[in-house]
């Protein structure tokens, strides 16, 4: 288990309980989406994984080490955290320097560093902007720069906070492929997201938070059944799931491919759609 969270409880300075007895484990190479309404504690939970927030009680173990005694910078070797707002981190005079900041801090040897930076730029489609000042780029591209700067740190765990917000279609497709690629390389990916279609298409497992507690935790294919039961309007089911419900199908479907397979389990495999859906 690369992540073990045990009875994690956290209160804001105002006294409000943000997380209440949260426990879960994540295996290496798993892709886990954390979903829930605004204010359910998703981002707070994610921030605990990099040590930005410290639990009031309970423990977190990352890659076999308790996080209590570790600083944010030490945890950064294991957990890469991509913040929601890229402008909270972009400071260098060029994209390539920005992406090199993390690897330099982690003291990778220069050759390895260059290799990591180039590969991160390639994966995020930023090669053409490498010498541009990050603040001169559009928000969508700045978000990709922030993503690249974390990928270049080559951490076994990557945490993404609302990665699709403010991103156009091309960037979301790129992001989805990237998540799949990371998992294929055996890296663990966690995301906090509102985008349910993105979640079902690129993640294996869903953790639903409600009022600071885990309301549901399980494989992505079974999750829609929970949401349909708990219907409080704060979570919107994936498009294909709702379509399946409307057609009166009992077992939920989540993706276009799954839907087509169910529609006609006829001869041969369904053609995989050309794009992310």
């Amino acid at each position, binding site marked *: 288990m690369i992540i073990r969270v045990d009875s994690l409880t956290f209160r804001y300075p105002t006294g409000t309980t943000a997380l209440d007895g949260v426990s879960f484990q994540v295996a290496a190479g798993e892709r886990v989406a954390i979903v829930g309404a*605004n204010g359910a504690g998703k981002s707070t939970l994610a921030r605990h994984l990099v040590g930005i927030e410290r639990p009031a009680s309970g423990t977190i173990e990352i890659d076999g080490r308790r996080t209590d005694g570790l600083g944010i910078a030490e945890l950064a070797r294991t957990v890469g955290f991509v913040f929601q707002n890229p402008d909270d981190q972009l400071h260098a005079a060029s994209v390539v320097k920005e992406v090199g900041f993390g690897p330099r801090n982690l003291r990778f040897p220069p050759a390895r560093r260059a290799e990591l930076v180039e590969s991160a730029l390639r994966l995020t489609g930023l090669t053409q902007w490498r010498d541009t000042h990050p603040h001169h780029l559009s928000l969508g591209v700045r978000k990709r720069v922030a993503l690249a700067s974390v990928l270049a740190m080559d951490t076994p765990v990557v945490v993404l906070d609302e990665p699709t917000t403010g*991103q156009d279609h091309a960037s979301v497709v790129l992001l989805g492929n990237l998540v799949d690629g990371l998992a294929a390389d055996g890296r663990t990916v966690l995301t906090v997201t*509102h985008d349910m279609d993105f979640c079902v298409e690129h993640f294996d497992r869903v953790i639903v938070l409600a009022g600071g507690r885990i309301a549901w935790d399980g494989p992505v294919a079974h999750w829609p059944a929970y949401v349909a039961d708990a219907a409080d309007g704060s979570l919107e089911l994936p*498009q294909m799931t709702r379509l399946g419900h409307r*057609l009166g199908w009992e077992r939920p479907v989540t993706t276009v491919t799954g839907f087509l397979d169910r529609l*006609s389990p006829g001869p041969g495999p369904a053609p995989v759609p050309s794009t992310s*859906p």
Partner: protein
Amino acid sequence: MIEVKGFSFTYPTASRPALADVAFEVAPRELCAVVGGGGAGKSTLAGVVSGTVPHLTGGTAHGVVRVNGRDLAETPLSGLVGEVGLVMQNPFNQISGARFSVREEIAFGLENLGVPREEMAARIDPVLDDLGLTGVRDRSPYELSGGQQQLLAIGSILVMRPTVMVLDEPTSQLDAAGNALVFEALGTLREQGVTVLLIEHRMERLAGAADRVLVLDRGTIVAQGTPGEVLADERLEEWGVAPLRYTVAARHAAARGLWPDRQPLPVTLDAAAEGFGETTDRLARGDRR
């Protein structure tokens, strides 16, 4: 009423135009959505229609933009106040900072217009209620969450009762419940005869709410029409816009003869359920082509 004719705009120091030869009209009571990829010029278009571009940004503009019959090239920004409302992408920047509570922040525009105190109170409280902000009315705007700030930004414009409303991704930080509140408010506006121009990434909301959709790609309008026509277009992805899953599923199904002939590809849940309902009925009858 928005009329744009042969409009082009280039930012100062930019090498190519942000908008090139753009033309469209939005009638009163109409909700027109604008979609497109990053850098397509959507936010610039929002600025143009609300009068901030090029008045505040500088740059060179050609062509005509008329809002409620007035030529914006000849109308100072102050002449549009109260008539055109602009809700921006980043709610943090929309908050004026001039006022210390949510209620006073909503009042800011009314104060600038010189609305009497009693009338202000009567207009503000229903808006707070509609957007679910009554519980935080005395809090500082800066203490709200991103989603609440987004609702506040919308409320601060709604309260001015503009006849033309421009919204630039107004729900990006809201969950499903917050989204529903905003689209409900937009529906009410349309009934009241307001012209709405909406930039949005979430295609499903838009397909249900918009009367018309414009697609911008690299500064030009490449398609416009009803949501059903535009969002089901094969070239949608080339234009940088995410197709709805319903449409994608139907397109693949159609290729395998599993979508009813002559039925247009669906862009809403209802249309998809209807079409695939027919298919499943047909399959249940064992009629397989």
